[in-house]
Structure formats: C-alpha cells, structure tokens
C-alpha cells in the first residue's frame, strides 16, 4: 500500500566534498539578458539561466527520478534508503525528521560538517521529479499545473522566489555548496521568464 502513495521524502545532502574551496557559482541577473531582442528567445534564456539553480545538486537531490532522494554533489542514493512516504516526509517508520530537524545541524569536527534541516523539509512530489530531465523538459513541467502542485505562474513565481525550503538551497549548511547566485536573483529570473511569456526551449533539441 505504502508504495502506492509513495510520495516523497526528502533529500539530504551529505556531500563529502570540501566546499570551502569551491567558488560560488554566479547567477546572471535578468538585466544581463537585455541584449536579446527577441522576446521568446530572451524568455528561454532567462529560464536556462534559472535552470542552473534547478539543475543544481542542492535542488535535484530532493527532486529525484524515483521516490527515494539522492545526496551529495554526485547524486548518489540516499543513505539510509528512505522512501517518500504518503506526505513526502518519509514513512512513519523512518520519517525525514529522524535525521533532518528544523534547521541545519552542525556536527562539529566531522567531515560531513552539518546535517541539513528546514522547517518544511520534504521531498518533491513524484510529479515534480527533475532528475534525468533536460532543462526544456523541466521548463514544460514546471508550468504545467498538473505537475507543479496546481500552481498558477504567479503562484509558481512566489513559491520559487520566497519559499523557505527552496531558499534552503542557498543556505545548505556547512560543508555543502549552495545553489548559484541568490534566491532573490533566481526569483527575478523566474519573474522575467514569466513576464516574457514563459517560453521553453524546444524539447527535441
């Protein structure tokens, strides 16, 4: 039964990399795309830039292709083998909250320097699986109310720009590389994408 509603659990990223040395990835602001005259092309460019965030391990790990999250910058299977469970917060027997609290937790001295946490820690629903998709496929998916949590584009923009769990990607805890840029610029890119018609690249490209 469990498997039937298997929705999601949440990813944890026990990245073993030494993040201190990794330069923060930049994220270009919408203004930097002003030179693209064609509106649709500009829209696509906004999304492609925003997808640097969507395709980042901090995001992908909790938008897995199966109902189990992955972890680390290499997207390896989560240990333990947690399942999404009925509410995307793990099963009753092994909920996300077994390890993930309301905030990132320092481990001190360990090579895994923190355990990620957030008040809303959970796995993306199955409809929002991103791993293995192209940017164009994610683009189509993210504006499809059937696959984006029944959100209008305005609601989607608000979610991506303001949601604290989305925001975790830029505050992922010590020892973990954050998503590129800031949530603010990411939000601006999404906003600009929507305002320019929310165009997606051709999927077959």
């Amino acid at each position, binding site marked *: 039964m469990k498997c039937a509603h298997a929705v999601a659990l949440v990813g944890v990223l026990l990245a073993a990399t030494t993040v201190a040395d990794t330069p923060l990835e930049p994220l270009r602001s919408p203004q930097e795309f002003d030179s693209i005259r064609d509106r649709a092309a500009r829209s696509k460019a906004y999304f492609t830039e925003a997808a640097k965030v969507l395709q980042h391990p901090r995001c992908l790990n909790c938008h897995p292709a199966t109902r189990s999250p992955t972890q680390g910058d290499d997207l390896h299977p989560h240990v333990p*083998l947690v399942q999404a469970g009925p509410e995307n917060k793990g099963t009753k*027997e092994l*909920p996300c*909250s*077994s390890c993930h609290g309301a905030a990132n937790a320092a481990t001190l001295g360990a090579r895994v320097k923190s355990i990620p946490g957030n008040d809303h820690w959970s796995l993306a629903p199955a409809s929002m699986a991103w791993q293995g998709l192209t940017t164009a496929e994610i683009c189509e998916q993210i504006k499809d109310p059937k696959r984006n949590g029944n959100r209008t584009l305005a609601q989607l923009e608000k979610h991506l720009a303001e949601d604290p769990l989305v925001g975790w990607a830029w505050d992922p805890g010590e020892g973990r590389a954050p998503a590129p840029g800031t949530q603010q610029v990411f939000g601006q890119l999404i906003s600009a994408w929507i305002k320019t018609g929310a165009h997606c690249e051709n999927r077959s490209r």
Partner: protein
Amino acid sequence: MSQQLSINGVTHTVDVDDDTPLLWVLRDVIGLTGTKFGCGIALCGACTVHIDGVPRRSCITSVRSVGNASIRTIEALETTPVGRSLQKAWLDLEVVQCGYCQSGQLMSAAALLAGNATPSDEDIDTVMSGNVCRCGTYGRIRAAIKQAAAEIHQSAPEGTR
C-alpha cells in the same frame, strides 16, 4: 541554559547550551549510557531514540529542538509491548554479538513495528538500512523483527488485528 527534558517518563533539568545534541545530554549529563555514539553524523543509527514516538538520531538532534517532547531511550524499551517482543526475539534468535549497535537497531525496529505491524523483507531492509552493524548481525535482525511482528500479531486481541 537550563532546560527540562522528559526522558522515559522522568523530568530532568539540564543546563547545557541549547545546540547540544541530545545524545551527549543523555550520556554525559544524565548518565543514560544505553544510547550509543557511533558516527556523529546520523549515518550509523547507533544513537537512535524516540521523540514523541518518532525515531530520531540523537547525535544531530539538539536539545533545543526537543522542547518538552517525550523522549524514550533503550532503557525504557521494555515498557512497551512492541519493545518487549523485540527484546525477546533478539534473545531467542541470539541476534547480538558485540552489542554496541543493538540499542539503535532495537529502537529503529520498534519504530518500524509501531508504524507497520507486518513489514515485508523490503520494508525491513529500508528502515533498517539506517543502522550499521559491523559484527554482521543483519540476517538475524531481520528474522527477529519478523518473529516479534508475528508474536505481536498473535497476541493482539481479536478485532485489533
């Protein structure tokens, strides 16, 4: 700062920084050493306790986050029917070798059976994959969980099954 913790039905007042993991409060401050330190990063499960019935890795669970929730440790596992059945099965099947991981194994198993009275092998593997045993008692743990589940099922009054 001073904080009250409800552990195995007893209220303890502890005076530690609120980021202190529950594990060290249990072991070093209160003296409940049944909960074990194994990795410090929630990867081995040796420190598993129940907080309001939810299995939690106490090595990364700050006392601040516990608040006034009810904590149960291995020392009080025997106060629940599921716990007693598991302990019995563990001894019947001679699961234990060095025993260091077994507090955590039992607490994870108790959470498993509390949420799923008739777990399949796959259910057991999934939940128990969070607990490392270096003595290699996994096969016996799986068998003991099944035995305990069967015993609980048999002893449950009609209509509650």
